[in-house]
């Protein structure tokens, strides 16, 4: 017996294809699987795409659900990092995922805080954990680790057992 699928492929909103039609030069790649529609963007078009999916009546992405990053060092990614943002529309009840590749040498992405205030802490966390800066962020400090902490612990080149205690023995 076939496993019932929660998502009817024919009834999906195809937001990724609509966004690609809108920004053909800015979109590197699109794909969708089981209702997860994803658009990979050039970094230069990150804000354009974000503004479009927030304002366009067919998108209306009024919730930034999550913003995080992936370190692809061990997967030999070029460029090494990828910033991932998940959006949700309470009006249409649909979702979209945007990604953008980020190079290690130039790890800066434009901030989304002007469009979704909730991006503030997400971007601080990404800076803290991965060392990716967000251009235009109002207050880009570490979120989870302490000020004295050196490095970015979720980078793959940060040793898993390296510790930097504030007090107590060094390891």
């Amino acid at each position: 017996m076939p496993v019932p699928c929660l998502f009817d492929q024919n009834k999906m909103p195809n937001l990724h294809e609509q966004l690609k039609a809108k920004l053909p030069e800015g979109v590197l790649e699109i794909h969708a699987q089981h209702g997860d529609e994803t658009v990979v963007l050039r970094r230069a078009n990150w804000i354009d795409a974000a503004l479009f999916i927030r304002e366009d009546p067919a998108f209306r992405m009024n919730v930034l659900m999550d913003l995080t990053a992936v370190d692809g060092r061990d997967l030999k990614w070029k460029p090494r990092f990828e910033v991932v943002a998940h959006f949700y529309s309470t009006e249409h009840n649909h979702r979209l995922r945007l990604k953008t590749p980020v190079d290690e040498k130039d790890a800066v992405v434009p901030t989304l805080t002007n469009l979704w205030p909730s991006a503030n802490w997400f971007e601080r966390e990404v800076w803290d954990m991965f060392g990716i800066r967000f251009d235009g962020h109002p207050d880009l400090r570490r979120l989870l680790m302490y000020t004295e902490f050196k490095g970015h612990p979720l980078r793959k080149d940060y040793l898993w057992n390296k510790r930097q205690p504030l007090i107590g023995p060094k390891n």
Partner: protein
Amino acid sequence: MEMTEKATGGYLTSRLNDMIGWARKYSIFQYPFVTACCGMEYMSTACSHYDVDRFGAGLPRFSPRQSDVLFVVGTISHKMAPVLKQIYDQMADPKWVVAFGVCTCTGGFYDNYATVQGIDTVIPVDVYIPGCPPRPENVLDGLIKLQEKIQGQKQEV
């Protein structure tokens, strides 16, 4: 301490050290330093099913100046460690520390960049209660061990 038949006469004989130890072990005011999921088990122990008040430890004080035993309940991160040290330093003597749960004993499975590998690297610990989280029976066992320790030690006055 000996409470014999003589006590029926309206007095009892003891040694001062034992008497103070007896008083101290049955009036443990705890400071619950609760940071994580072990707190649920701490609450379970404190509530009526297991009733930590039977052992004279039923009155948590949320001020380190008024408490005798520091219960460190849950994972301690390196960011939190100076706060824990300060709380410990603020407590008045005599004071004891209970490491509640495996994270406070050794760091548990959080062998990573963020977690203190046992609070005994930061402050001295009297009783370790392992478990993830420990059962209330386990906590009560640890509490009785602490009472034995309090009773047996030299009482600083």
